[in-house]
């Protein structure tokens, strides 16, 4: 693909993301809004593919479009399908949002260009990971010999971080189970309610 073709796709995907986001915010019917968040996730996944991050794209498609859409639909089934109409709009919040946005965009001017080989992140430890030679505490070089360097970094060089992430997911799951688990699956819900009250 030529430079211009990639840029056209970039601009198309990013503007579709922005349009979807604005539509979700303006929408009052929550059912359609949830469907649009699924669409937003698929667009986000395409954006990750463009950025050469297929791992993140797979996660975004499965979690963002699949699982979280279902969770929001399940929540909607228990609550209202329409958002409350907000009549009072405060000026202060608009100012806060605009100022924060401007500061964030201003901050990006100082960042290295996307894909710049001289960016600090590419000069720190990444060359060692790519060369598969990381000095280990035991003296010898730790060589992983796994073709996918992302997996090597996640599972081996940064194993502690990944263990921490797994424990975070574990903790989140335990939290949801403690809050929402059906404690008496055999009893009907109405009976369980009577027993409680």
């Amino acid at each position, binding site marked *: 693909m030529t430079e211009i073709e990639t840029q056209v796709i970039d601009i198309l995907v990013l503007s579709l993301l922005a349009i979807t986001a604005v539509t979700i915010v303006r929408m009052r019917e929550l059912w359609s809004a949830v469907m649009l968040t699924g669409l937003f996730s698929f667009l986000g996944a395409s954006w990750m593919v463009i950025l050469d991050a297929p791992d993140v794209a797979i*996660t975004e498609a499965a979690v963002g479009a699949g699982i979280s859409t279902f969770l929001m639909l399940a929540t909607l089934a228990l609550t209202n399908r329409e958002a409350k109409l907000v009549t009072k709009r405060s000026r202060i919040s608009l100012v806060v949002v605009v100022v924060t946005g401007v500061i964030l965009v201003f901050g990006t001017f100082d960042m290295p260009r996307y894909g710049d080989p001289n960016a600090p992140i590419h000069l720190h430890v990444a060359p060692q990971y790519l060369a598969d030679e990381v000095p280990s505490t035991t003296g010898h070089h730790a060589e992983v010999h796994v073709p996918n360097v992302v997996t090597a970094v996640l599972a081996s060089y940064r194993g502690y971080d990944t263990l921490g992430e797994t424990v975070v997911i574990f903790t989140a799951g335990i939290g949801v189970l403690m809050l929402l*688990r059906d404690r008496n699956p055999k009893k009907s*819900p109405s009976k369980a309610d009577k027993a409680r009250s």
Partner: protein
Amino acid sequence: MKHHTILRIVSKLLIPYILLFAFYVQFHGDYGPGGGFQAGVIFASGFILYGLVFGLKQTRRVAPPAVIEALIACGVLIFAGTGVAAMLLGGNFLDYGLLEHHLLEGYLPHGQHLGILLVELGVGITVAAVMIAIFYSFAGRELKR
């Protein structure tokens, strides 16, 4: 969803391939994109699709909640256990270089490769089990009015 014939047939066709793709992403993670987390969520989304089309009761028979809850802890234990095994062999925690075995010589990988496979398996089991458990707890809620 007893009357949605097209939905039932299409998801029946799709679910085996979703699960198969999850296994591919899991065990091919050292060569291609993917790994435990991605495989876990894909595997869980196959179960969620099954649950949406064929009902919660059927899904609970396929994957009993008690088993799923035990698997949540199992995944973390596999991950941490791999680290402890490396320690017992005289290395640092999660230093897979020391993992050696004499099982199926030439077929099963050694050292770092074996450690990565085990660790990713742990991540995949925990993620899939947590996602399915969250699905059960959300879908199990009924409207109380």
